[in-house]
């Protein structure tokens, strides 16, 4: 299967279209996905667009928004002798006292996995308790549900820290000083949840929301659809990633989430508590919740270090370049705040690729 999603000619046409449609004022577009930010920076898309189009990453990096309280709980479980399994990006996020990696260097059994099923496999081969740090958005949650429904080993459990994207988008729209002109909705979250959950948001706040794919042309296409909506004064939820997103999403995955999880209020690092924005295990699956099994009560974690602009970056109210620590005191090898840690985090991505190169 070879298709031209990087075709320069089509890209130029789409850019021209965006140029013709974009209003003559600053336009702030927010996407909610680290993979989008990588695609935008890696391909230098900002440099193709007029300066007045300001594209920012909102709370699209699961690592950045995982509260220190959840991380501290994982550290506690490791100190009690459990094997902690986590996605790679979680390893370096600073908790209140230390990161998982630092705890590992002190002798704790912390293992990097690429999938929840790897965590379950580790549990099959040991007598020890194995905990999977369940971090991620709707894309990642069905996998955890599938594992729990599939007779997992008894010594396996989940530290649930799963989060939902539409309530986070809503919280950004609620901020009084956040003039968002449009959202590019995350492609693979939408593969699971579909387009419908964005409809009420688009209607209530009068904001265009277009689901976007991850190739350069997908992103330009999503921007073009947003500019079309703006110039026609017709804000709505629209699918710009038809080949991977159905209107209703993935019914099987949605059913799995519903069977295993329930909605709960959740704390987002840098934002605070958002009602019904998190998922925790429901009554039928409570026994797989590591917090219950180990009787660990999450404690209020620390706030961001002083002068760290991560909360503003996560809420799309600042760009990394506006932070005085960026590239100076805060680098990927020595991150000061969570936005420099994850590969999907805006500060980390801008550090690696540059933000808005002038070509």
């Amino acid at each position, binding site marked *: 299967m070879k298709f031209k999603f990087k075709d320069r000619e089509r890209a130029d046409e789409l850019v021209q279209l965006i140029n013709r449609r974009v209003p003559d004022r600053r336009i702030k577009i927010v996407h909610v996905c680290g993979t989008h930010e990588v695609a935008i920076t890696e391909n230098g898309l900002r440099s193709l667009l007029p300066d007045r189009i300001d594209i920012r990453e909102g709370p699209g990096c*699961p690592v950045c928004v995982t509260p220190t309280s959840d991380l501290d709980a994982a550290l506690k479980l490791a100190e009690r002798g459990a094997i902690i399994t986590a996605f790679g990006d979680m390893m370096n996020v600073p908790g209140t006292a230390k990161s998982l990696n630092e705890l590992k260097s002190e002798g704790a059994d912390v293992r990097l996995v690429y999938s929840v099923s790897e965590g379950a496999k580790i549990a099959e081969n040991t007598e020890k308790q194995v905990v999977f740090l369940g971090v991620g958005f709707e894309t990642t949650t069905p996998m955890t549900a599938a594992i729990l429904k599939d007779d997992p080993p008894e010594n396996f459990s989940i530290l649930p820290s799963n989060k939902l994207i539409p309530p986070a988008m809503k919280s950004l729209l609620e901020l009084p000083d956040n003039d968002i002109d449009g959202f590019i909705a995350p492609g693979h979250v939408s593969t699971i949840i579909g387009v419908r959950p964005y409809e009420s948001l688009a209607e209530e706040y009068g904001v265009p929301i277009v689901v976007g794919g991850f190739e350069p042309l997908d992103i330009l296409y999503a921007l073009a659809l947003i500019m079309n909506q703006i110039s026609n004064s017709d804000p709505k939820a629209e699918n710009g990633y038809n*080949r991977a997103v159905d209107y209703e999403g993935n019914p099987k995955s949605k059913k799995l989430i519903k069977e295993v999880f329930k909605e709960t209020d959740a704390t987002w690092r840098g934002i605070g508590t958002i009602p019904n924005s998190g998922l925790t295990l429901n009554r039928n699956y409570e026994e797989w919740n590591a917090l219950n099994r180990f009787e660990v009560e999450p404690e209020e974690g620390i706030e961001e270090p002083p002068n760290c602009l991560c909360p503003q970056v996560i809420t799309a109210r600042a760009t990394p370049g506006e932070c005085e620590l960026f590239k100076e005191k805060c680098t990927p090898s020595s991150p000061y705040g969570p936005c420099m840690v994850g590969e999907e985090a805006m500060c980390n991505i801008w550090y690696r690729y540059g933000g808005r190169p002038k070509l």
Partner: protein
Amino acid sequence: MKQEREVILNPMCLAIPGEVLAVEDERATVDVGGVEQEVRLDTLSEDVAEGDYLLVHTGFAIQKLSPEEAQETLSLFDELIETNKQLEEEREV
């Protein structure tokens, strides 16, 4: 640099297309970028057969992809471009 990227490559939102080589019960062997990978199918609603394309996220299939739909996406791009060109031309006239 490349090596570093591979080591810390984050799986959380990334989904990659691959071609199904074989199917057995709820699992498929999938060629993802030249690497054979076992992929679970219990997160997918549709039936899967050899030769299908799947979008794979952390070892699970989340969507069946069809070459026709990929082609259709490109047509949608062109359609939008064409419609706008026509609109512009009409305006100029």
